[in-house]
């Protein structure tokens, strides 16, 4: 149902990936699920749920527009990917990658999306991606097209980066230099994880990690967060050592022990400048709260900071839990939308 609120709620169809993969729901089913959860916006992964991708026919556009109308929702964002490593021994040139990125932006326009989540080179920091993704030079080349079509490139600032990380700045500078304000920051709630989610525990245990150690570290993270002190792994390291961590634990611990939430004050300060937000979540605790991100605080910061735009549910617990059975994505998203409405005061 469409509203005139400053902060609107959407669903990234990524959230329903198992339903799609296992053919429980097609594109329409996923849109119906999103609309049924109370969301008014749809983020679409063309690479996943538009079967004729990478080309979009007028017939598909008509179908898409029909779905938007039938379910009373609107399209808000299309996800861009930068598949440079196309072949074993050869990669796309900058010109070829530019052409592909243009294709995503034109597709977004065709489907009526005003935003493209651009897979920029530093979206999960540096040193992880084996190939150069969409870098500043590439974004500079894409800006005139975005300006012409009125499509905003959202730079997803995913953990371990944050919205105020200086690695995202050159993109904004180039937009300013050209006088084309068509690239902006996108917050992803992964930056606000204060502990790891229990959704991941089962999978890590199945991979050989020690359950007691994982719970101990997670509880220590939670204790630190709710006591308002930073979590310092080195302070509990000697206690973990006493629990005889195995090799799998030793591999996992440095990764999961890093969690500490980015500043809510900074989020509030940046809120009015953000162009899109991913409401990432993995699982809920027994009180119906997201079990590793402080949603009331995060949403308060966005609201008080004057954010205007969409927050889209991005359920990612499926990937950590689906190796042992069915994960009820539809129910997870339903609860998540209700929680966000609660936090934003939309239920009263």
């Amino acid at each position, binding site marked *: 149902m469409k509203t005139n609120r400053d902060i609107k709620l959407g669903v990234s169809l990524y959230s329903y990936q198992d339903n799609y993969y*296992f053919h429980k729901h097609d594109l329409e089913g996923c849109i119906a699920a999103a609309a049924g959860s109370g969301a008014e916006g749809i983020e679409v992964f063309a*690479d996943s749920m538009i079967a004729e991708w990478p080309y979009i026919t007028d017939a598909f556009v008509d179908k898409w527009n029909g779905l938007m109308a039938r379910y009373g929702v609107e399209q808000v964002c299309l996800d861009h990917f930068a*598949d440079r*490593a196309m*072949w074993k021994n050869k990669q796309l040139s900058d010109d070829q990658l530019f052409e592909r990125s243009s294709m995503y932006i034109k597709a977004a326009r065709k489907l009526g999306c005003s935003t493209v989540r651009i897979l920029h080179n530093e979206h999960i920091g540096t040193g*992880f991606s084996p190939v150069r993704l969409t870098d500043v030079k590439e974004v500079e080349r894409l800006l005139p097209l975005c300006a012409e079509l009125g499509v905003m490139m959202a730079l997803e600032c995913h953990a371990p980066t944050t919205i105020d990380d200086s690695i995202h700045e050159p993109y904004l500078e180039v937009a300013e230099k050209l006088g084309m304000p068509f690239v902006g920051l996108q917050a992803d709630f992964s930056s606000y994880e204060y502990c790891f989610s229990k959704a991941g525990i089962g999978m890590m245990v199945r991979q050989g990690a020690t359950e007691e150690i994982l719970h101990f570290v997670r509880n220590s993270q939670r204790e630190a967060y709710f006591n308002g002190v930073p979590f310092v792994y080195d302070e509990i390291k000697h206690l973990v050592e006493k629990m005889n961590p195995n090799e799998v634990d030793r591999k996992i611990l440095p990764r999961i022990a890093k969690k500490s939430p980015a500043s809510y004050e900074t989020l509030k300060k940046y809120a009015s400048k953000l162009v899109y937000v991913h409401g990432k979540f993995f699982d809920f605790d027994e009180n119906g709260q997201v079990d590793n991100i402080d949603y009331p605080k995060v949403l308060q910061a966005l609201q008080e900071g004057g954010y205007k735009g969409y927050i889209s549910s991005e359920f990612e617990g499926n990937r950590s839990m689906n190796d042992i059975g069915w994960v009820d994505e539809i129910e997870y998203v339903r609860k998540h939308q209700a929680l966000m409405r609660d936090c934003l005061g939309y239920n009263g």
Partner: protein
Amino acid sequence: MYDNHILTDVGCRNVWENGKKVGYGVNLKINYYRGLPLCCVDEIALEVDGEKVDPADMVVQHRGREYPYLEILKDDFPTDFYWVFGEMLRVVIKKENGIAQGRHQVKLKLATRRSYTPTMSATCEKTLTFA
């Protein structure tokens, strides 16, 4: 993630021509949360009853077309043939006399290249009944 599901039990059967078995086929699903161009397949390796299948004997059937498996690995293979998310990719193994009807132990290794993570490899082993 989808590792347990990349090898399906759908459509496992002999391929016949003129009353004779000339091969057998299995259907695969992608090991990722989105579809990828076929050229992003880094490796499909099959082992049947402990014996490695020669990649030169494999063909890939995708949306009504057939490509020798080794073709899709070449550095000039088109980038716009997508292995759609959730859709099955049929691999046919050319073999005189096909496979004996009944149960066989099949092991699959599937590796795909993605844009922002290193190449991901998944393995899946199942007992499949071939028709």
